[in-house]
């Protein structure tokens, strides 16, 4: 197991290096740069030397290869650089946004797991009944519905309901407060995006739970369990569900990694200042260092999640031995 983990961790390096190369050259392919945007963006007259000086200051007038290796080299000594746009350290810019994105991702995962496991299980146990059909339709609708549109609908619903009850329209607060300082204020802001994304997430997980459980329920050892007189509830909960968890864990893990960086549109709807928004801003500002660091962070979470999934596999199913 330890050997396997070391091997997997080493395998991360080529993937992350590839992602670094990809994002670096992709970013530099975008026409224009940050200095042009800063001084020539507004269209007013400016000193041509100003742009040159700005480029020299940021070091983006040097050969790309030099810039690339300087950036990559920084990672090995824990120096992630400073944002070209705000001039503040990358870590300082990313940390509060990552905290927000992480919280939404965790809450959405909770919502998804709480919905998906019972619904998926009941749908599989009562296959082809009206419950099954309803659950399947709800979950396919969840995958079909754009979560940003669901977000708009949630806002609309909140407005209507608050208008009917309090007589004035209420929408979630825009200012982020830390969950430690003000848990209720924090929850009133973040529960809605968590629900909007959690629904889609739960739809994917429900479908996986259902089909995995259906497959397991046809196994011989389930028949054995039933034959020796184990009550149906125990057969499903103890014998079947745990063995059906492997693909469900995969789906939940991958979706979680996706949520950390892919919430761009939902953040826009709810006006959240998370990683997704930072990403859009840094791409439009030509903030190379910031965009590159963000991509590396998201790619890192993704590969880490994949390793974590494999570890959970071995824990869930003792037959799986990595060597």
């Amino acid at each position, binding site marked *: 197991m330890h050997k396997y983990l070391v091997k997997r961790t080493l395998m991360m390096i*080529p*993937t*992350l290096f*590839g*992602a670094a190369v*990809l*994002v670096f050259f*992709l*970013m530099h*392919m*975008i*026409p224009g740069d940050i200095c042009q945007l800063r001084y020539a963006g507004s269209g007013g007259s400016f000193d041509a030397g100003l742009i040159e000086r700005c480029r020299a200051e940021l070091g983006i007038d040097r050969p790309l290869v030099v810039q690339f290796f300087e950036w990559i080299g920084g990672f090995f000594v824990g120096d992630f650089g400073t944002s070209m746009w705000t001039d503040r350290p990358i870590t300082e810019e990313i940390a509060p946004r990552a905290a927000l994105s992480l919280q939404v991702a965790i809450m959405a995962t909770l919502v998804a797991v709480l919905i998906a496991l019972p619904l998926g299980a009941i749908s599989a146990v009562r296959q082809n009944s009206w419950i099954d059909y309803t659950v399947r339709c709800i979950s*396919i*609708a969840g*995958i*079909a*519905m*754009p979560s*940003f*549109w669901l977000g*708009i*609908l949630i*806002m*609309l619903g909140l*407005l209507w309901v608050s208008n009917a009850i309090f007589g004035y*329209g209420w929408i979630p607060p825009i200012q982020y407060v830390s969950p430690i300082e003000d848990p209720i204020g924090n929850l009133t802001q973040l529960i809605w995006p968590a629900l909007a994304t959690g629904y889609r997430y739960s739809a994917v997980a429900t479908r*996986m739970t259902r*089909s*995995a459980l259906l*497959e397991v329920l046809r196994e011989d050892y389930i028949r054995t369990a039933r034959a020796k007189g184990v009550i149906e509830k125990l057969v499903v909960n103890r014998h079947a569900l745990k063995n059906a968890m492997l*693909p469900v864990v*995969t789906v939940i893990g991958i979706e979680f990694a*996706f949520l950390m*960086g*892919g919430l*761009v*549109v939902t953040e*826009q*709807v709810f006006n959240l200042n998370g990683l997704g928004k930072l*990403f*859009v801003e840094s*791409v*439009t500002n030509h903030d190379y260092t910031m965009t590159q660091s963000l*991509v590396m962070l*998201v*790619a890192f979470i*993704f*590969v880490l999640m994949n390793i974590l999934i494999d570890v959970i596999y071995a824990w869930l199913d003792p037959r799986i031995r990595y060597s």
Partner: protein
Amino acid sequence: MTAVVAAAEPAEKSRLRRLGRMCRRQPLGAISGALIVLMALVAVFADVVAPQDPLKMNFIDQLVGPSATYLLGTDELGRDILSRLIHGSRTALLIGFVSAAVGATLGLVLGVTSAYLGGIFDLVFQRVMDVFMAFPLIIMALAIVSVFGAGTWNVIIAITIPFVPKCARVVRSSALALREIPYIDAARAAGFSHARIVLRHMVPNVMAPYLIMVTSFIGQAILLEASLSYLGLGVQEPTPAWGLMLRGGAEQFFESAPWVAIFPGLAITLAVFAFNLFGDSLRDALDPKLRSL
């Protein structure tokens, strides 16, 4: 002459009967298939079906609610929402079909080739695919659109690229099992070229996962296009597109004119719903084992 007619009739009948049996066995698949056909017809005949010009602005009838003249109301520029939805189905289906077909086909060929060649090529290819998989879809699209600019065809490129590794990975795992079957060795022994073995002998045998991927990609592509257009990185005004219709006025006036925000979202949901349901039924019919797609 009569013999020909007599021979043709049972064939016709059995085809109808087969269709009827398919509908009974996969009722959801039949319904979603009908929905897709309907959508395609609406898209093709948009000019005839749409009650109004989707681009015509009317500053007297701004944000009018659903009525007899404007069945689904008008937007903030007084454009008929129903007509814009009908024309928007063209954009959605064009982007959906093209990016799904191109992305999945490239993935198909690359995945099968990688499995067939094996060795160092397969290893390197897989690492490259890993890199693309680790890149979140929407961020990939964001970068591509910033390089090539927004617009329908660039959106198609942006959406197609992430589909390639997704399909390649699934197809590769099917093709790996295929490579071990003796008929591939037989083909090699008969002196067929690598290209011929990959294209003529292996590709047709991984058609089931491929077709399922294509249908699920169409739905995903429509969703992605809507997200990108909503962010302002996709299809540009005045082209009618569903995601674009949710941008701007839809958000600004969603309290006083909720129809502007509700109907385009319904159209997206219905379209993706139909393709997903169809993909599900296709999977059940073709290969129930491919549940992880």
